[in-house]
């Protein structure tokens, strides 16, 4: 039985992942459910050493929506600290743990389409998650000799914890060619990445977004205030 360790946000996406992986007979542990726990990297490093998972899925905790002009330096510091700094050192600990195990493995960073295509009102979230895509590539290079793959999975605009007005939700749904945009789709993609068949797939930014990034909406952004 393969062991999955999940670090980060506790929301619908995490729940969908849990159900899907348990259905496929993976054992499953969830740590760092809160942002504070997620920043306690030394504790998480110990968890990695103790659990020695086959699969690590990291879900950075900071998600927010708001106009850049209204953002504060304190909000930027918080987002940078939670999403980039903490994730960087979780991944560094993972590098040491996975490289030392010599049994291969899978690392996935859960992300959002705003990290790949900027969206109005999501500068904090998109910028900090975008930074992680460079780290994913770097870690993929360093862990490739150990048969560990490292990828990120970007969920669609609606499959995140953002609280959106109803009209924005409707616009985003209309801009998604395959209208279904559920947590289950991202969970399925993660499951694929964790399969033996995906052993040659590394350093990539994959999307489970129903083709959202294939299109450009017309008129004003649904995120405009």
């Amino acid at each position, binding site marked *: 039985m393969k062991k999955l360790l999940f670090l980060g946000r506790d929301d619908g996406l995490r729940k969908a992942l849990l159900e899907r992986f348990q259905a496929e007979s993976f054992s499953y542990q969830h740590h760092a459910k809160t942002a504070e726990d997620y920043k306690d990297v030394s504790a998480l490093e110990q968890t990695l050493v103790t659990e020695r998972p086959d699969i690590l899925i990291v879900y950075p905790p900071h998600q927010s929506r708001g106009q*850049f002009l209204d953002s504060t330096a304190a909000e930027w510091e918080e987002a940078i600290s939670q999403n980039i700094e903490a994730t960087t050192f979780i991944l560094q600990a993972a590098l040491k743990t996975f490289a030392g195990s010599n049994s291969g493995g899978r690392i996935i960073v859960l992300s959002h389409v705003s990290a790949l295509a900027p969206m109005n009102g999501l500068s904090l979230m998109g910028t900090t998650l975008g930074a992680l895509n460079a780290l994913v590539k770097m870690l993929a290079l360093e862990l490739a000799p150990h048969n560990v793959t490292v990828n990120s999975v970007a969920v669609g605009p609606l499959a995140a914890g953002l609280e959106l007005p109803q009209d924005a939700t409707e616009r985003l749904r209309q801009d998604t060619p395959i209208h279904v945009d559920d947590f289950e789709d991202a969970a399925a993609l993660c499951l694929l990445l964790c399969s033996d068949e995906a052993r040659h797939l590394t350093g990539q930014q994959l999307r489970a977004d129903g083709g959202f990034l294939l299109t450009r909406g017309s008129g004003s952004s649904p995120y405009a205030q």
Partner: protein
Amino acid sequence: MDLTGKVALVTGAAQKRSIGWGIASALALAGADVAVNDAYHLDELEARAADLKAMGRRSLAVQADVTDDAQVVRMLETLVESLGRIDIVVSNAGIARWETFSDITLKNTRDLLRINMLGNANVCRAAAKQMVKQGEGGRIIIVSSVQSDVQFPITPVYGATKHAMHSFVGSVALELAPHNITVNHIGPGWVRSPLNDVAPDQKTEADIDAQKAGVPLGRDGKIEEMGAAIRYLASDEAAYTTGAFIRVDGGLGIGKYL
């Protein structure tokens, strides 16, 4: 590309061999009045302002740490009090650290994130607010790196901060478009500026030859060439370019192999 009558601010511009000075002098040569900023090298910063005045431009040396939002806000207030307005901001201040991913330290990571990301956010936000207040549009330009597009093995966090600028610039460009403010970034490749003086892979003649061999155009970039790209993005001719990235790298970022 006449910038006469425009007022610009360039951060990280004290040192004469720096990209910041290449940009400040290019904007001044095109006619702009240019304020220069740095957190350190204050004697040199004053000398740069004097150089710009000797070119017949109004100038100002403003010390501020871009990671401190209060200092950045005061810098913009000082600039507007002295030069009347701001039309162009070039957020250039940044640092680099060379460490493998296994060896990166918390201190270096925090320094990189604070200066290269928080610093850009602080400078761009303060300048954008003033531009919105003025109601006549503006130009926001960030100096990122070729590493926005390609990764190098000993600068993982530096690369992450530069890659993040794709997302940042795009998102802010969308937000500020209704105000006719354009937001873009340029990606310098290998420039022998003070930033690279301590690079571990550029110490010997053999290192330099290896660097040259890695650039399709076979040489380092000049600070004047970075200034030329910024001058274009700051000009009226670039009024329809927003959310874009221009690599100024001799082809370094084109592909992995030559």
